[in-house]
């Protein structure tokens, strides 16, 4: 499936300044694996060493948070936009 990864401003410096990365993946997990391979500097910002998505990051497929679908197994369709956002937290 041809999908787009949309990145927050803070992470664009790790992939040459791109806000949107076109990739081919059938699930969110597969999309992250693809990023690990093609964008390793970006990937370490998204996932820790165990492969878990960092705790304060949110991953959406179009308008749905992945936790409200099938988590990392959420299926992707052609044209989907996977948006990665940092949680708004702290003091």
């Amino acid at each position, binding site marked *: 499936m041809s999908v787009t990864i949309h990145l927050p401003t*803070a*992470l664009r410096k790790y992939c040459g300044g791109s806000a949107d990365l076109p990739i081919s993946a059938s699930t969110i997990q597969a999309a992250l694996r693809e990023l690990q391979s093609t964008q390793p500097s970006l990937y*370490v*910002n*998204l996932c*820790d*060493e*165990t*492969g*878990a998505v*960092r*705790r*304060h*990051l949110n991953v959406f497929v179009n308008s749905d948070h992945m936790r409200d679908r099938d988590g990392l197994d959420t299926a992707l369709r052609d044209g989907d936009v996977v948006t990665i956002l*940092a*949680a708004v937290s*702290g003091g």
Partner: protein
Amino acid sequence: MAQKVVLTIGTKKGLFVAQSSKSRGKFDLRGPFGRGIPVYASLVDTRGKRPVIYAGSCNPFFGMKVLKSNDVGKTFEETKSAPSFAKEDGRALANIWSLEPGPDGEIWAGVEPASLFRSWDGGNSWEMVPGISNHEHARKWQPGAGGLCLHTILRDGERVHIGISTGGHYLSEDGGRTFAASNKGIGVGFAPDAFPEWGQCVHKIAGHPKAPGRFYIQNHGGFPDRPGIGVVRSDDHGHTWRSIAEGLPSDFGFPIVVHPHDPDTVYVVPLEPMSRTCPGGKPAVWQSENGGKSWKKLVKGFPKEKTFFTVLRDAMDIDDLKAPALYFGTTTGQLWIGKDGGEKWKCLFEALPPINSVKVSVV
């Protein structure tokens, strides 16, 4: 070029760099670098032709970064990578707690969960030091309130001393290849066995190059039933330890610092153990000039009352000028300087973010 005194101040909101002439009269402040991201450890590496500053930027959103400056803290850039565990290890880096010079130009990093990493190339790539990181006790260490941190790295020739909270003091006598728990005489107040083999909540370890084999520990004290376990000393390279806490108002505290020109002179900041603030609201740094046999308080310049600050384990340091000055930062954002070895105190900055660490270097 005239020498400069450089302070690296790790705060909850990033790294600040303060700079002064040798007079230490006025400090200019730069930063924050790594804005908004906590910094617990920094290093001014003076071994090369020009000083290099490193700092651990502990980003809760995007993971750990190592910041590096080649222009004495005017600008910083991220190194190509930060310490990280192998995927099959199963651990994930949660914090960088210490950055120290290693042998042959290496940089060593102590991290959370308690492990040690080394870099040969100025922080661009890192490798785990397995002797301590995969020690047989490693999966049994328990985190203290600050997390399971490897916070102290002290090299003494082929010996390497490591401080872990909560794990204790570990000693290598083969350059860091293998380590053994070495806590004989270091007590705990939170377990039935007062003197276990390991598991101590060591807060900080300090030594002095002119006194090889002698080390001081600020341990987790403050237990009425086990008095005196909080401040201890070793004279045999850390194989055995004995209390030197008598005379202090509290044996609880975090930092411990040795005078750069006199290994008998040592400083601690006793805190009330429950609130972890100045006992009675009266701040004081305590100094021993005889290796811990007796202590006196240094209070000139501090408020006399109603002051309840906290000084964390890495938030006090001392420069190595002829008349050294002590520096400490508080979790309420004050940065203090104590000239003449702490005889005269003055607040340099009153309202920084909460301060985790302070390092000083003359460059």
